[in-house]
């Protein structure tokens, strides 16, 4: 019986550590979706992001072409984005794009090798959309979504 408080303390400590680690992990997973400033959208919903990054939506309101940019499938940002936005793991995403090609629906979005290049391309290319880790200096772009979404966002 004398060990009970210690056991409880141990469990509480582990729970606190786990929740702290989980909260830090969630922080790490925050991404900003950035677009060229000419894109008319002020905010994009998860459904819109899904439509854009699965190439279902190819045109912005107003007629401008949507030009999505992605990272290499092995990139951890890409894997995080696919999981949080598309709800698919790496294998499912790879299969999704293979299926599209076999059906004759074309290839996947263009890929960029680095966050810095992503920012530069999105800043310079009208209609472009990409994503970067939250807090990245994204000069010349517009942040239209946060992934995962902010609490209370529509």
């Amino acid at each position, binding site marked *: 019986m004398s060990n009970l408080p210690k056991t409880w303390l141990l469990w509480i400590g582990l729970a606190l550590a786990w929740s702290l680690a989980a909260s830090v992990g969630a922080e790490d997973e925050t991404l900003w979706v950035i677009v060229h400033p000419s894109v008319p959208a002020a905010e994009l*919903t998860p*459904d*819109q992001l*899904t*439509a854009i990054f699965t190439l*279902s*939506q*190819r*045109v912005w309101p107003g*007629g401008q*072409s949507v*030009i999505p*940019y992605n990272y290499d499938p092995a990139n951890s940002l890409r894997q995080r984005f696919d999981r949080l936005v598309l*709800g698919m793991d790496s*294998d499912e995403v*790879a*299969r999704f794009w*293979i*299926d599209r*090609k*076999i*059906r*004759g629906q*074309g*290839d996947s979005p*263009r890929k*960029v*090798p680095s966050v*810095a*290049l992503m920012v*530069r*391309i999105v800043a*310079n*290319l*009208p*209609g*472009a959309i990409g994503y970067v880790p939250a807090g990245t200096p994204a000069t010349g772009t517009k942040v239209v979504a946060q992934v995962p979404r902010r609490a209370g966002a529509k």
Partner: protein
Amino acid sequence: MHLQRLGSCREVPAWAAARRARVAVCSALFVLAGVGRAQAQAGAPAPAPAQATPPEKRAAPDSTADQLEQLVRRVEEQERENARQRSELQAYKDRLEQTEQATAISASSLDSAHEAALLAEGGAQPFEPAFRLYGFADVGLQRIWGGFFQTGLSQSDATNFVLGNVNIYFDATPLEHLRMLTEVRFTTLPDGAESSDLTSGKMTLQNTAVFDQTSAAGGVFTIHWGAIVLERAQLELSLTDWFNLRVGYFLTPYGIWNVDHGSPTRIMLRPPLLVSIQIMPERQTGIEAYGVFHALPWHLSYEVYVSNGRTIGTVDYSDDKALGLRWVAKTRRPFGMQYGVSGFYGTTQNYDKMPGADAMGRAVLLRKETIAYHELTGGVDVSLDIDALRVRMELFARRIVYEQGKRETTIAVPNASQVQSAGYVMFAYRLPWLGLEPLLVAEFLRQPTVLFGEVVITGSAGLNVYFNSALTLRLQYCYTQVVDFEDTSRDHSDYYLHILASRLILAY
């Protein structure tokens, strides 16, 4: 004074070795100071004092003040030397920095080149044409056996290794918004395959064996040529989300199986009966408008086409063009689901030509219409992806109305105008281990014939193994039985078929 200088060295707290070193340095400095003074007196240039003034002619310091002066000069020289060395060091540093900057600029240039290429692909720069090659292939082992084999419809009931598909896609975007997609299938067919004359029912075995005259074997070497099946060749004009155009030879947009098209994408290995009998033509030549409207989280897409329709060969004998449509509503929330409706209306004719005479009595080839009918087909399809469970369902009906005396035949027996119907439902569940996905299928086909009964029912069980996103193994066993609900006096109990098939599939 020397002692004082040395003493000044001693003032530095140190252990013995360090002290000895300092004493040695101070002594050396003293000697050098003397040498330096002699050089100064000789007026020799600083860098080469030893050569300018031989040691034997060196004047000895005559006083402490002189020695101090020499020492001061020597220190000054050392300072100048130090300054020179610092300058050289700075020069090296500058050069190193320049090299680093050059490297950085070079890397930046590469980055910029990559960026420029990406920007060009994105459309901000002048358009860059693109051409891509990809495809899929499958090989396997299969056996088809059972009582139905005795009707002669299948070619062999032995176990066979099979080369299934070897399909290559040629995907070109030569102009912005314009895409040409060509897909071909390489096959060993038609060598050794059977073809049937619908009128007489006679089966003919194709033989493509020819002597290879390009071989140095002397004309006795035989090769079997195979064919290329054109799966599709379509030109696409992408304008907006909601309106685009496709012209050429395209896969008919209906149901699930025909849209999924390839063995990597399809869940089942064996084609559904409604596809086997081509309840709609598999592909057509014409023009198609297609697009999608977003009512998030739903996407509403449509395809509408005008085509030659179902043709016996590649020629449409009528200006009464076929019309078709497909409408789909799909979403990913709360789970993946898709509902589709497809329709097709068309006419089909065929002609024979035979020698004869026209009204003026001239010898001509007279045309005679031998087949003429119109058909109306419609159906629905449902796809559900609920976590690891995948459900697929298609249900179609086709009404065929023949003109009098212009009917198709099945083994020399004329077909009746009729309503055909077919459907299937499939359940597949992706297990959390080893990429395994077992599946179950149930299907039916109602196609009344004099010879082969009225209804075909089929049950299947299969297993898919997903090794990775590109490599898949599909296995399927299928049992098919013919039943007749209208003419129960006929016994079709021996009209059954077993099919066991496997395919190893690679997408690339």
